[in-house]
């Protein structure tokens, strides 16, 4: 597909947008389903029913346990499919392996930086943490530093006007920022 970059030029962007190699996808999904089912089954043991249940009620543990058991079947199905596909088509490699290596870093980094962003909302507040993390991401996504900083600032101002101004949302102000404010006032 085509899309326009920051300099206004048309560039080609490869699809498939983020799909993993179908063979590996089955394995990953199968393992995920087995793990989540196992976790649900183990954690279900700790559910306390408080004794409110009436006659005929299967109880609070039953539904999650049955679902977890069904997901085990789903997981096994995917792993069997993976084995069959692997035997049929050989080991995964080539284009998909290259794509995985080239792109996993960016997704992982974005995921980690989002977690850092969420964590920083408390101490630094919305405006500072957004400026700190979003400008580098705009830069990574192809904009220049100047444009990224301007766009992030405009974004922060728009969100402040829309959410804090119009909808009275108390956006996080940041404990550190407030402490610095208090310190400056005391000075």
């Amino acid at each position, binding site marked *: *597909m085509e899309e*326009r970059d*920051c300099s*206004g*030029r048309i*560039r080609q*962007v*490869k*699809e498939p*947008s*983020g*799909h993993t190699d*179908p063979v590996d*996808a089955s394995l*990953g*999904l199968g393992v*995920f389903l087995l793990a*989540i089912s196992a976790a649900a089954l183990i954690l*279900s043991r700790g*559910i*306390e029913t408080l004794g*409110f249940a*009436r*006659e*005929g*009620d*299967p*109880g*609070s543990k039953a*539904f999650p346990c049955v*679902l977890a058991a*069904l*997901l085990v079947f*789903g997981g096994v199905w*995917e792993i069997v499919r993976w084995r069959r596909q692997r035997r049929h088509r050989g080991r995964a490699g080539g284009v998909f392996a290259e*794509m995985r290596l080239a*792109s*996993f870093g960016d*997704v992982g980094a*974005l*995921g980690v930086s*989002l*977690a850092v962003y*969420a964590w920083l*909302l*408390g101490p630094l507040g919305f405006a500072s943490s*957004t400026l700190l993390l979003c400008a580098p991401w*705009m830069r990574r*996504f*192809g*904009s220049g530093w100047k444009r*990224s900083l301007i*766009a*992030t600032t405009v*974004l*922060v101002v728009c*969100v402040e006007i829309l*959410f804090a101004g119009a*909808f009275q*949302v108390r956006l996080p102000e940041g404990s550190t920022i407030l402490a610095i404010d208090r310190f400056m006032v005391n000075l």
Partner: protein
Amino acid sequence: MEGFAELLQPAVLIPWILGMVFGVFVGATPGLTATMAVALIVPLSYRLDDPVAGLAMIIGVSFTAIFAGDIPATHLRIPGTPASAAATLDGHELAKQGRAEHALRLDLICSAFGGLVGVLALMLVAPELAKFALKFSSHEYFWLGVCGLCISAAVSQTGAVKGATAVGLGILLSTVGVDDQGAVRFTFGQLDLYDGVQLIPAMIGLFGLSEVLRYARRVTEPEGGQPERKRKRDGDSPRSALRTVWAHKWTAFKSAALGALIGALPGAGADIAAWGAYGMAQRTSKNGRRFGTGEEEGVIAPTSANNAAVGGAWIPALVFGVPGDAVTAIVLGAFVVYEIVPGPQIFERSGDQVTAIFQIALVTQFLLLAAGYLGIKAFGWILRMPRGIVMVAVMVFSVVGSYAMRDNVFDVWIMLAFGVLGYFLESRRVPLAPLILGLILGPMIEENLRNGLIKEGGSLAPFFTRPICLVLILILAGAVGLKPLWSRVTRGRDGA
């Protein structure tokens, strides 16, 4: 008439129109979907003092974004939503002939007309259906929930097993929190999880953040320096578009009626409606052979049907709480937060709000003409915005939107977790809409199963012997078999 007058108050009208403009912006941006538009607008709508204004925003966005998805479909051959895929065929061919704006004007008029037919069908059919549904008890509700989930899994584009996996995960996640017997499940000691997984942050994560993660994953190859393809100047006027639609009024009406009917089937969404109407128009038109080469009827049929299906999809959603697609699922989730509980009693319990919903949906079709026209004109501007900046803006709106629900950073963590989950599942071709349906319908299924068992002293037999249950089981069997049958029919036609 009083209700309509209330809708035209500035406190309602301004957020409504702004919401629709937002819907156009998101729907028309390639890669951002109607589902994402609705998910992002919901937290904003809760902040409005007037609940009618909030509902107007949500409904306005849901209709506008479906139309706006046709804009990149026509210009770039990138459908903004699955429902826009059929519109790419002749719409894009017209665009290549320098008639993009004409195609989009046809599209806009037909979308508004189709939406009107869908809403009228909703207004006429839903109350009658609700009267019948009053005969339902726990056993029937259990099967209704199961029907909705099974059909949504069965019609998944990536296969029934992947759809069922998504449904199972959704229901499992719906068990988090305190159940109706007071038992605490999977909360890990977090008080914020006692009310269960908050739907809106989960939806924003699944549909908004996962898209940003997918964008980060794409491998880009700058080809640089290619000048933008010059388009011929449009010589068509809005009046000529109206004349064209009038000339094909029966195609528009038949397509809209078919769209509303298909939309009303739980699990069969606007995409199936659009393709069905396109196929019907192709077979019945005397210009059928010219379809796919820039034929105006090829634009009129799918665009009338896809918006009609939105109204049609609300029939099972409101009466039974069984949404037909992801957009309706999110709208339904938002209704629950407005304390509008879907079900046969909806017309008694929330009569005023349902009337408001009907009125909003009707007026939205007329406002769509203005907002859509603006969108057609503004598309050039959106196309010029760097995609990276749009994606970072989506990221920030996802974070702030989740936080704004309860002024709680915990909801941001929920959104992040669901964003990663959505990215992981989509990269494994697991559809996300059935997961959301599982999350919404899971509690309904569990509660009715348990209530049914308590009533019958633990016996499962009434779930299979009550007459309406039997009918629902038959409908379920028929509807699940519909997709393979449909695939066989289309394969046969392609082969011929």
